[in-house]
């Protein structure tokens, strides 16, 4: 019974947690610019993230250790230092992007200038982290995140041409600028395979006390949860492709994306977009801030745990406090939230080899994982993931120059 509940909650968490500012930005850009042609990028990224999340959960369930902790212990502090620094920078940028998304949602609702909401958004996230337990965070943000299912409802209501949607599930030559097409494809991959996701997932599994008996639950959560989450993102591509693309509206600013639900829901669409964005970004900001603290605490061997009283893990608490404050500064000084998000997603894709490779190496350690180490299928997938992330890292800079405008 407990495991069934864990499974249900895990799936809900994944559905609610999958969709964040990165997905909103990249999916709406993809749909508005190339209609349904980039659905394949989302499908590819989903398959990769399912493998990575499954591995990180399995690792935590078998060893009782979270990934940063294990990588540092296994390969040494010197080896972990580079991924740790990169991961920390990405964490801060993602927090800034999520706070930007929350602030934009509040700007939509109130009409007040966006930077005004930077600090209040950060304080809201901080208060939630300060007062809540891990389970409360996991459950409440995931239930609230279900509002993003409105994108699926809109996609169904709009009745897109099925043959075009299916054709978009396979890679094809772009109908417009090739550089922009590949730039958005790489950004989609960066938005879905967020490095914080698997580090957070493994730390969360340790926090709630998963053991070997949770391996099947972990697998189901990874496949079903991420699969459903991906459906919401694909729905966002479809809605943007059906509403914005035919009118020649590109998404150069979140104001343009805010109109996408008004065709399916004339009186609620605008509010639904604002609430979806606010809730999705709030949930993601909470997860990323926690992930930053987990990574720091496990790297330096501090006390850690969201269920502990802040006085018991003061340094853990200090890390998310500082991260949220620094993240909010980006929005406060006037960084455009969409540009900040796209840049962050792009950098996320470029640094994937540094954060994914140590984990994939560890998953093959038979001394540590015994019969739960990677099998042939997982290793083939891991090899393909490493190759894909290396290609992304190499092509990212020229693509950013050519297609980022």
């Amino acid at each position, binding site marked *: 019974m407990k495991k069934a509940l864990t499974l249900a909650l895990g799936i809900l968490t994944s559905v609610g947690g999958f969709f964040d500012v990165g997905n909103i930005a990249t999916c709406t850009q993809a749909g508005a610019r190339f209609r349904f042609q980039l659905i394949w990028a989302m499908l590819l990224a989903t398959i990769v993230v399912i493998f990575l999340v499954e591995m990180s959960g399995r690792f935590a369930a078998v060893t009782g250790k979270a990934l940063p902790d294990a990588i540092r212990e296994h390969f040494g502090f010197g080896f972990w230092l580079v991924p740790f620094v990169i991961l920390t920078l990405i964490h801060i940028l993602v927090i800034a992007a999520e706070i930007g998304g929350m602030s934009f949602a509040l*700007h*939509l609702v*109130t*009409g007040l200038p966006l930077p005004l909401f930077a600090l209040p958004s950060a304080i809201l996230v901080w208060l939630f982290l300060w007062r809540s337990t891990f389970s409360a965070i996991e459950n409440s943000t995931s239930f609230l995140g279900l509002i993003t299912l409105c994108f699926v409802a809109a996609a169904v209501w709009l009745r897109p041409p099925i043959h075009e949607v299916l054709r978009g599930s396979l890679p094809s030559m772009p109908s417009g600028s090739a*550089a922009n097409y590949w730039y958005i494809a790489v950004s989609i991959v960066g938005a879905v395979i967020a490095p914080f996701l698997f580090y957070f997932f493994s730390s969360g599994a340790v926090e709630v006390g998963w053991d070997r008996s949770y391996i099947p639950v972990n697998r189901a959560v990874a496949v079903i949860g991420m699969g459903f989450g991906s459906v919401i993102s694909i729905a966002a591509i479809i809605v943007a492709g059906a509403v914005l693309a035919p*009118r*020649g*509206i*590109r998404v*150069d*600013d979140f*104001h*343009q994306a*805010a*109109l996408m639900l*008004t065709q399916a829901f*004339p*009186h609620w*669409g*605008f509010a639904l977009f604002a609430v979806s964005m606010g809730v999705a970004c709030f949930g993601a900001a909470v997860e990323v801030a926690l992930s930053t603290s987990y990574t720091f605490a496990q790297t330096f061997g501090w006390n850690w745990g969201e269920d502990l009283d802040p006085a018991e893990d003061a340094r853990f608490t200090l890390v998310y406090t500082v991260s949220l404050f620094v993240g909010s500064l980006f929005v406060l000084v006037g960084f455009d939230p969409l540009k900040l998000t796209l840049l962050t997603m792009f950098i996320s894709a470029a640094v994937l080899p540094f954060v994914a490779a140590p984990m994939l190496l560890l998953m093959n350690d038979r001394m540590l994982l015994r019969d739960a180490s990677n099998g042939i299928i997982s290793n083939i997938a891991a090899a393909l993931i490493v190759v894909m992330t290396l290609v992304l890292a*190499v092509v990212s*800079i*020229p693509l950013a*120059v*050519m297609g980022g405008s």
Partner: protein
Amino acid sequence: MRRLYFFFAIALLACSHKTADQQLIDAADPAASWMATLQLTGEKWLDNSVPSSFVRATIGAAQKAFDKTSGTIAQSQARKELRDEIKRELETARAAAGDLQQAIEKNDRRTATGAVRRFAEASAALQRLQQQKNRE
């Protein structure tokens, strides 16, 4: 790795070789997108689907894009007729944006409807230029 980036730099230069006319039409693309955005925003305001504050903010964001395109036109080496045509559509959109702004302050639905129609015409004119360029 250096060779690889050198290769990409060469490819970048090769790809970026466009005529001044093509460069100007590309630079006007965001402006066309903003005109279409203002058209949809105006339509949704007339349907009571979006609040006035959102229309105001969207007009502000569009004006920045129009300013940027104006700057590009001023520096462009493209044919004069092309520059004049884009400038004309841009001025139409600017004037319509001003009218829409006033219309929402006064809740004047007739003026707003007129502004929406002018956004549609200006956006269609720029999109036609883009299509012509793609055919050439």
